[in-house]
């Protein structure tokens, strides 16, 4: 019985169902080709990487009771900066400079996060509106950087972070896994997780318990910015170009959805990193499934709606109680009273 009670059971179950569908529709689910893994599953995992990264940052932000709408714009800026600099390299295939540029792009993204964090924690603006500012203006900045055009790069090392393989596994996936591990380590092996949950659970009580909520909040936005920047790099490396208009467009919605599916409440407090990752993979799998089973474009949203509705009903504690609760002896006693 307890397995059904776990919040992550139903997202996981739906994910498995979708994957099984894909197993039947795809010609190669997982195989080895050219010395690395290949197939639908690998595609899904690889393509989930940006959403996982953005979702991780979003989870941390939401755990403090905030929200970050600007992640999509930060992705666009980071991609634009990176591609602009790489384009000007003499040798786009030299690893050192490309790594440096990646570093620069991430630092720029973290500065964006710092801006958000400052607005929220120092000036005290409601997070949704504070990050809306960068959401709107940020994409404009990205457009300025790329002059409204798509910047193409031909850098092998850069493309590797999205489509390369290392030890038979996609590099993008490895990056996402590494980031997840890092965040897990950071939040669960240190006291960061506890302090964040406490700030999100009750800001007043946390303040009186001596928690420096302000610094933590800023930090969380900086991390979210950095992760969004990294996601932007993978997004752009995947298509070897910086597209300031479509990069990360509307990703904030998917990221928030992933966080909520993963069992983190939007009001803040308790959060689940693994849940978010699961949510992100689920969303990506859903997108793939829609194409794989040939749902017409105009019905995509309806299909998504059905899955989301099913998911939230299954997750609902009240419904669960109604369906499964009857089986337990004590509710039987309750039934006897009402009868």
């Amino acid at each position, binding site marked *: 019985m307890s397995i059904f009670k776990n919040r992550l059971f139903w997202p996981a179950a739906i994910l498995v169902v979708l994957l099984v569908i894909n197993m039947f529709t795809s010609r190669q689910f997982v195989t080895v080709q050219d010395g690395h893994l290949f197939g639908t599953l690998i595609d899904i995992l690889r393509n989930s990487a940006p959403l996982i990264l953005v979702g991780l940052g979003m989870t941390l932000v939401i755990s403090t009771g905030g929200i970050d709408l600007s992640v999509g714009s930060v992705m666009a800026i980071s991609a634009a900066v990176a591609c602009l600099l790489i384009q000007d390299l003499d040798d786009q295939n030299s690893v050192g400079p490309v790594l440096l540029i990646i570093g620069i792009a991430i630092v720029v993204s973290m500065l964006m996060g710092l801006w958000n964090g400052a607005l929220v924690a120092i000036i005290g603006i409601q997070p949704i509106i504070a990050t809306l500012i960068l959401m709107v203006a940020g994409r404009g900045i990205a457009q300025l950087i790329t002059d409204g055009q798509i910047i193409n790069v031909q850098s092998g090392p850069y493309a590797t972070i999205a489509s390369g393989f290392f030890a038979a596994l996609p590099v993008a996936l490895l990056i996402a896994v590494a980031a997840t591990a890092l965040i897990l380590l950071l939040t669960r*092996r*240190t*006291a*960061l997780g*506890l*302090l964040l*949950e*406490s700030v999100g*659970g*009750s800001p*007043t*009580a*946390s*303040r*009186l*318990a*001596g*928690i*420096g909520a302000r610094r*933590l909040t800023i930090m969380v936005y900086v991390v979210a910015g950095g992760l969004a920047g990294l996601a932007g790099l993978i997004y752009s490396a995947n298509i070897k170009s910086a597209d300031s208009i479509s990069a990360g467009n509307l990703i904030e919605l998917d990221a928030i959805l992933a966080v909520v599916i993963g069992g983190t409440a939007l009001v803040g*407090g*308790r959060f689940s990193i693994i849940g978010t990752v699961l949510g992100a993979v689920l969303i990506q799998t859903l997108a793939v499934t829609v194409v794989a089973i040939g749902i017409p474009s105009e019905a995509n949203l309806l299909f998504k709606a059905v899955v989301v509705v099913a998911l939230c009903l299954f997750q609902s504690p009240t419904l669960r109680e109604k369906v499964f609760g009857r089986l337990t002896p*004590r*509710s039987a*006693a*309750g039934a*006897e*009273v*009402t009868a």
Partner: protein
Amino acid sequence: MGEQSPVLEMTGIRKVFPGVVALDGVDFRMFPGEVHALMGENGAGKSTLIKTLTGVYEIDGGEIRLGGVPVRISGPLQAQQAGVSTVYQEVNLCTNLSVAENIFIGREPRRFGKIQWGRMRRRAAELLARLDLDLDVSAPLSSYSLAIQQMVAIARAVDVEARVLILDEPTSSLDASEVEQLFRVMRQLKESGVAILFVSHFLDQIYEVSDRLTVLRNGQLIGEHRVEELSQVQLVEKMIGKELAALEDVEDKAQRNRERAAEATPVVEARGLGRTGAIAPYDLTIHEGEVVGLAGLLGSGRTELARLLFGADKADHGELTVSGKPVNLRNPQVAMKKGIAFSSENRRTEGIIGDLTVRENIILALQAARGWTRPIPRKKQDEIVDKYIKALQIRPADPERPVRNLSGGNQQKVLLARWLITEPKLLIIDEPTRGIDVGAKAEIQRLVAELSDGGMAVLFVSAELEEVLRLSHKIGVLRDRRLIEELENTAGVDADRIMQTIASGATS
């Protein structure tokens, strides 16, 4: 009275939470025109019984009859409609609304569907006057202290035409005079035939107003008695299942230390410290090993005074030195670095973090002081937490339970534990014994005395004057948000003396 038929009868009530049987076949009944006390230790199941009655919790077994008719109450709204009016243990009001609204919301005076604000305010003011309160009824409730909020909640409940009035620890943060007002109102209602369920951990209060009492222990019914039949000692025995002896001990210890404390070095010295609109500038020195108590009426500024010493509010006058060095307490973090700890009176909004577990709540302040990069090793956490769960008798003794599922008194203990483990130089505790049962209260008092023996300075704020007198070396008396006098707690000082000071408003 015995001939009458009960207005409320609960039989075989059973309520199970995951892992806890909160109520195990409890019978409870009430007659019209009686005050019925519900007694039991923290976590005995009093609040749960009340909540099953008002439909907050669905019962897992048993039957409820109101006026002889079996009922199924599905929520507080239905309970109210069935004539059951309730003040819950934690003040459950909407602090964003005005005082008047909190009293009348849901039953506002209306004409043609439009709320009559003027009439509502007037009636609210009248009602509060009955409880001897003079508030700005259009101010948001959040601008008033917890005790006032408690009074507002009471005002709301007593105004409802009810057959049954339930008061779950209404007096936990009230002063003697407010308690008197409340009792007066309760007696009036009783005269008019209302059955009143009263929960309190103050035995004197129970004996003063109650006609009958029901004792619970561990979710089980121990017995129902007429108050005259049972002495206080017997009652306590029934509640805790054994005898209680620790209390006398404390007094001696406090006495013993009085001289020593006077010579000790000052931990904090406030010079003209104040905050406009909250507390007039005051001077106060607290020495090592000294317990300073604060006494005053409701809203006299005890809490405000204490908050300034922790930087919970920022002082706008005067200066403060900690261990001889001047400090500017910009925020609580600074205060904590200087070795000051503060447990707020408002445990629900300023104390516990409901979602977190007991363990996490206990280590929170210590962890915050260490910074996030230096987590307390899990083994050490468990050690500390186990120790304090035992010392403070936190029940259920499960450190991994979300603290929101604990009973009110047990939450208070968790909060105390949080600050005790930081081993501060100065411990500020505002209403630390709010809602705590007799046994645990004695335990906490003993602990405070012990800590001060060990050299810790304590600022002890409590609405219960006896407690202040028992523990303190020195007592600061407040009136109208001003510290009017500092008394050495010598033999001649007693409750009367303090009340006199307050009444005369000595300013010399």
